[in-house]
């Protein structure tokens, strides 16, 4: 508690000094921020739309100076931002073409967003080539900052390694009797990385468990998992790990629950947060549920001013509680504000990048330390809880919530995730 208070205080100090030094540059009146997110396809409803809502809500509040302190200064370095909404669907190649258009044709000032790991991985080198200040909001693959140093690209949330290391630690702590584990993950960077990190961590911290040799990797957006569920039901493993997200996750939970999969096996869903609000009573009790960090249902009741503002404002506008993607996009927009406040609204991409590099700031639900990937990749805590339907309130709640600090679930700067896990997670402070 003490430590958290300290980091928070430091964060606020850092940010207020930012606010003080900024604002002297010759200010622009307005800036354009492109916000790509899934507006079509299966990922739109559960992920893309809440994400876009979060971005819009926070941008509005910043433009009008309505964010709680210390962010109550109006605008992005004084400038009011207009958002360009973009569809993230259609594959990485299409996104690369669109990205080039955004930069070279539409001359946007900043690009903030992206959900799919596939897109982020494709765009990071393009952003560097075009020298475009870009903040990735949600995508998870650790490869982005591990395969090459970046200068213009940032990510303001923890990457997949923290999700899966934290999941394994939570399992070890709360379900020490687990004997074996299997998994169902999508066959692209996100799913492959997630399973690999979970599998490797389990081998390190619960060496007596057995990994199934028949883990499933269906194609993303497949929608029907009947055979996969049968195969996993017959598997001896008593734990099912999944990094499914969005519509795929909801379909999988439906089909699995109807067939008693989660009664027989412990389900661990690393991106389950979005489903908790949407599925209501249909979400099975007893799932180990994560939200890719301290977001959504896991932090609904955190009573910091910023968090309560976020939850209540979102509920007022959109009628539902904010899920993870809303938080993550809001957080990325906030990071953009911090960069602009520090560098000035007319700052170059280079100055903006310099301003955000290595910053620590207090976000809506947690402290974000930009300390990995040479100051470009955020480190945040990560946590899990267990689902339970609260029939009195008529909504899902999570019990036994436990958070692990960033230094416990993420490798130190400059260390590759896989090597870190395989090396016994040296330097982890839990």
């Amino acid at each position, binding site marked *: 508690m003490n430590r958290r208070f300290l980091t928070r205080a430091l964060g606020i100090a850092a940010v207020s000094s930012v606010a003080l030094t900024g604002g002297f540059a010759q200010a622009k009146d307005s800036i354009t921020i492109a916000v790509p997110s899934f*507006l*079509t396809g299966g990922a739109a409803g559960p992920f893309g739309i809440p994400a876009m809502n979060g971005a819009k809500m926070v941008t509005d509040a910043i433009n009008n100076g309505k964010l709680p302190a210390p962010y109550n200064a109006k605008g992005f370095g004084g400038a009011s931002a207009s958002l360009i*909404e*973009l*569809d993230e669907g*259609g*594959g*990485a*190649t*299409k996104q*690369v*073409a*669109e990205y*080039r*258009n955004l930069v*070279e*044709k*539409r001359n946007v000032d900043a690009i903030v967003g992206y959900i799919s*790991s*596939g897109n982020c*991985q*494709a765009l990071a*080198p*393009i952003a560097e*080539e075009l020298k475009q200040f870009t903040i990735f909001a949600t995508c998870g693959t650790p490869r982005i900052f591990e395969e090459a140093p970046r200068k213009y690209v940032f990510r303001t949330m923890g990457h997949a390694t923290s999700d899966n290391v934290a999941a394994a630690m939570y399992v070890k702590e709360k379900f020490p009797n687990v004997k074996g584990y299997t998994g169902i993950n*999508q*066959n*692209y*960077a996100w799913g*492959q990385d997630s399973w690999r990190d979970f599998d490797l961590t389990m081998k390190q911290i619960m060496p007596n468990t057995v990994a199934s040799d028949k883990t499933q990797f269906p*194609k*993303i957006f497949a929608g029907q998992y009947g055979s996969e569920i049968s195969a996993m039901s017959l598997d001896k493993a008593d734990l099912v790990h999944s990094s499914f997200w969005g519509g795929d996750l909801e379909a999988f939970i439906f089909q699995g629950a109807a067939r008693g999969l989660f009664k027989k096996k412990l389900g661990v869903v690393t991106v389950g947060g979005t489903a908790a609000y949407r599925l209501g009573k249909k979400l099975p009790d007893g799932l180990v549920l994560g939200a890719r960090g301290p977001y959504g249902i896991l932090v609904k009741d955190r009573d910091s001013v910023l968090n309560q503002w976020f939850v209540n404002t979102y509920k007022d506008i959109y009628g539902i509680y904010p899920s993870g993607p809303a938080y993550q996009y809001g957080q990325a927009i906030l990071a953009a504000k911090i960069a602009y406040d520090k560098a000035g609204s007319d700052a170059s991409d280079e100055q903006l990048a310099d301003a955000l590099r290595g910053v620590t700031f207090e976000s809506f639900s947690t402290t974000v330390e930009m300390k990995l990937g040479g100051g470009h990749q955020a480190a945040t805590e990560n946590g899990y809880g267990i689902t339970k339907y609260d029939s009195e309130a008529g909504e899902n709640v999570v019990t036994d919530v436990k958070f692990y600090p960033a230094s416990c679930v993420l490798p130190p700067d400059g260390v590759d995730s896989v090597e870190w896990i395989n090396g016994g997670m040296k330097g982890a402070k839990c």
Partner: protein
Amino acid sequence: MLRDNTSKVVLIGGILIILFGAVAPNWIVNQLMFGFSRALAILGLLVLWRTGLVSFGHAFYFGLGAYTVAILDIQLGVTDVFVRLLGGACLAGLAGFLVGFIMRNYRDIFFAMLNTAISMVLYGIIVKTESLGSTDGFAISLPTIFGVAPETKYPLFVVITTVAIVSALLINFYLKTTIGRLTTPIRDNEIRVEYLGFSVAHAIHLKYTMSAILAGGAGALMAMSLGQVDPDSMINWTVSGELVFITILSGPGNVIAPFIGSLVFEVLRTYAFELAPHLWQLIVGGTFLTIIFFLPGGIWSLISKLGRSTS
């Protein structure tokens, strides 16, 4: 070979475009690069279409070309633009030559669908193979030209435009040779062509292989100008559909038509995406239907009409 009007227009127009690219804003250079790269594939489809054959699966060759560049880059570290281009085109050509033995026996809708089927096999393999990038694909490094890594995209643009000019001239020349002229006759009456002493199967096989080489080259250039390949944007059936769409949009009238059609498509898609991010498919699909119904000769029919009325 360069004496007819089309060749002159291609040459002069091409040189003007290369000069224009030196002063044009980057996004226009990009659109031109994408457009011209894709136009090579359309050029191949045009040759087939004149024979009455429409392939609903040329993304197979397009993707093969693109992925050859990716593998050359990632596995072998090949960066030279010409090696990559030739690699992509040759591999696609070889595949086209082999598949051609089956394809030359099929016509009409069966020809279209068998091509789709073959492209989906490649799609299935790549999507499921992690070492081939599965759904994510690969990022591709900027190509070098004669060992020099260019600062801007302009040199690549010059290469692409030059390749486009040369291909257009060659195809234009081919269509005037005897074997090249065997397009409409085959479409209209194959038996008559056989009685004239030509082998329809051989003629089709040649055209099919040519179209595969062109599509492979198109994929290779596209991969280099975009800097990314992935199966959904390179090999999926929707990509084949797009290629045929642009062919129809361009019209079969002239070898210049594919270049105009591809550019129009590129601009259409860019603006559809910009104006209606939710509904760009509707705009593209709607245009598609409109062209099929109201402009069966494609954009080229408009241009030639215009040319006739002024002269």
